[in-house]
């Protein structure tokens, strides 16, 4: 668990400091997220976000922090059907049951919201897209595996960029 401003977080995707690896801004993380989950590429589907530093060219990865008190889950009108919590405590969206109301995205405590919403004139296609840590993939989150510069990792243990400090 990580703690920040009174809130604790579960295992989540973290970005390395640039001294370890600088995000190249390639958006591979966004792309592989939607390819592996949805079989397409779209800025409405990705569950991880590259916030582009247009002038600085320093890019920031915005990811779901998996808040322990899960306000997104609490806001879902179809709790335990559309938004569920698995045996490892990961809050995920069961899209079959998601009605696309967007309340989870609004309840996200981060700005911008870390829950994406598919926009469609067809109400049935409106779905919430939230990081599920690739919970069904034994190899772990696709964004971490496919980042060409390995600037992403999963928190909860010693992060790659903390390896040197481990023995201090």
């Amino acid at each position, binding site marked *: 668990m990580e703690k920040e401003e009174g809130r604790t977080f579960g295992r989540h995707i973290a970005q390395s400091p640039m001294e*370890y690896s600088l995000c*190249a801004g*390639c*958006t591979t993380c966004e792309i592989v997220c939607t390819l592996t989950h949805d079989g*397409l590429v779209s800025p*409405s589907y990705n569950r991880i976000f590259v916030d582009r530093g247009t002038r600085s*060219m*320093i890019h920031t990865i915005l990811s779901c922090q998996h808040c322990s008190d899960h306000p997104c889950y609490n806001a879902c009108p179809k709790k335990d059907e559309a938004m569920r919590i698995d045996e490892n405590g990961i809050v995920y969206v069961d899209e079959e049951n998601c009605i696309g109301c967007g309340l989870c995205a609004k309840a996200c405590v981060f700005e911008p919201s870390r829950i994406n919403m598919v*926009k469609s004139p067809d109400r049935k296609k409106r779905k919430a897209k939230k990081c599920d840590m690739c919970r069904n993939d034994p190899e772990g989150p696709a964004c971490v595996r496919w980042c060409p510069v390995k600037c992403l990792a999963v928190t909860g243990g010693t992060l790659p960029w903390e390896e040197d400090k481990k023995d201090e």
Partner: protein
Amino acid sequence: MSNTYGYVGKIARINLTTGEITTIPTEKYAADYIGGREICNRIFWENAKPGTGAFDPENMLIYMTGPTTATGIPTGGRSVFTGISPASYPEQYVWSGIGGWLGAELKFAGFDGFIIEGRAEKPTYIYIEDGDIQLLPADGLWGLLVHPTQKKLEEIHGRKVKSMVIGPAGENLMRNASITTSNDSVAAKGGFGAVFGSKNLKAVSVLGTGAVYPVDIKKLFELRLKMANPAMRPSPVKLEPTHGMDGNEIPVEGGWLRGQVACSHGCNQHCNRLMMNMKSAFSDERINQVEKCVGIFAYGYKEDCSWSPIQNFETSKNHFLPCKMLSMESPEPDFSDPYAPELFKQVRGDIVDFWKPDFDKGSVMMDMCNEYGIDKWDVIVWFMTWLSMCKKEGLLEDMDFGMEVDVENEEFVKYFLDMITYRRGKYGPIFAEGMARAVRTLGKEKYGDSIYHGRYSQMIGQRLDLPVSLEAAWGHSFHWQGRGFEGSIYKAGWLAHTLELMTSTRDIMTVAHFHDDYSNYLEYKDDPYHSKKLVESVIFNILKAETKDTVTCCEWQSPDIYWKDMEAEMLNAAAGTDLTGDDLEHQAMRSFLMFRAILIRNFGRTRKMEVEAVFPAITIPDTFGEVATWEEFNDLVDIYYDALGWDRETGWPTREVYEKYGLSDIADELEALGKLPN
């Protein structure tokens, strides 16, 4: 929304004069012309009338993505502009590639490309969001530098908006003006920033929420791991103690920070060097900027970069792609290869003594090019070298610039770039026309052809002649064309580059950089002028250039001459086609022939015109003192035309050639105009 051929279904046609916006189904072109430059060529052929000038409202700027754009296939984020170029001398049809994230965003917004024509009455920008296109007033944007323009558009439309913009150079019709998008990616070759300016167009901004559906995702992931053998390891920001190479090294007090960034959507590489915390030309605030290969000369140009044969001639054991260069991830040489010692032999560039290394001045020059939106190559390799050489040869004594000409003085560099961007003073309007035109206005014999006496070959140990204006052809400067002062390439290499340049309209180096197997080089090195093998390799490289701008992919990852189906595999994964490298080569020849037909019909291209355009450059001695002869070069041109099936006398393709590639309608039109060979 259609998902055919990796596309989302439509191309927008935007008339800035009338405000009319229509759409063309992408399928109309994609089935026969795939994408990118090939579709642009077809659209231009069908719509552009001979006699149109670059700044005429009738000039259409055509922008296209490719089937791979926004699919996640590495380098698919590349896209292409075409149109009549104000930078080209004379004005001709030119293409210019551009990376960034706008191409992908455009697809997410429901468009595969757009055509811009006409001229807005007042400064305008185009805003595209999910199928909707608006022409909006650019009152608050006009006059802004490039990055402030991008920032302002984000303030208006949100941080997710992707934009391509021009700076003051484009607004003031400076003929070398570029179009800039994210991570400082630019469409620089062609001066299309000035075409934006001539249309009163400041920017195109796009926001999309739609989706792109690659067909074969398993294959796509395989390509992500295979293309250019990505390092897939951390890329830390490093403190570098020095900058530059080959006689231009300079210690940097306190060091400088080097990072690496990607240039386009979904790429698996990070070729572009991010120079961090650098000196700005416009404020005390430190800035980050991207350095590509030309940038290195901004910081110091006492000596040209050295060259090794491996940069053109490769073996299966020793070959690497340019994308590894600036990220410093080139593989170690494999010395089990018997040719390795020859492949990695260093050929030192000439000492040219244009300016001594100065880290801060170089940063200021780069920043001004970025913010004003000017092609760096023209500024660094042509304007500044010309000033340096002319000053040393005493040619500027009768010219009053309003400040002493001194390219080693940061203040003069700022003054001069300001002058050409805003057309200030007596000489601003002259140089804003680009060096090719400026030299002719001033008097080419004196200001173009006078000999600079400061060039010295390190390979033969003697001084060599060099004209003060580094003009190669078509209004473009030398670019790594093997003359010693810009790439010390062996003769066979510079002849290959010259043939590529000859049938082009612009600096070809970024996209048609010549690669060949070393065994071929051994076959033609002793008599390249009479080698069919050399000509076959030139055509291979030209067709690869067409292919990569069509599929689309990046000139720094393609071609891989030992993986000839790479681009086909990319296309197949994106679009579900079943094409081979040979199929794409056939397709690329269609594109090349359409380009040729455009040049013949609209711009009067003939053999005489193109041979005379490129020949003077190869009469300047290379670093070994070698020059081409008129007779031998024309022998090579004969072989080249023969291999293409073009008429030796006119340089025009025959009807049979057009028909072989399914272009009989083009042959019909050219025949009616008397532009098919007898």
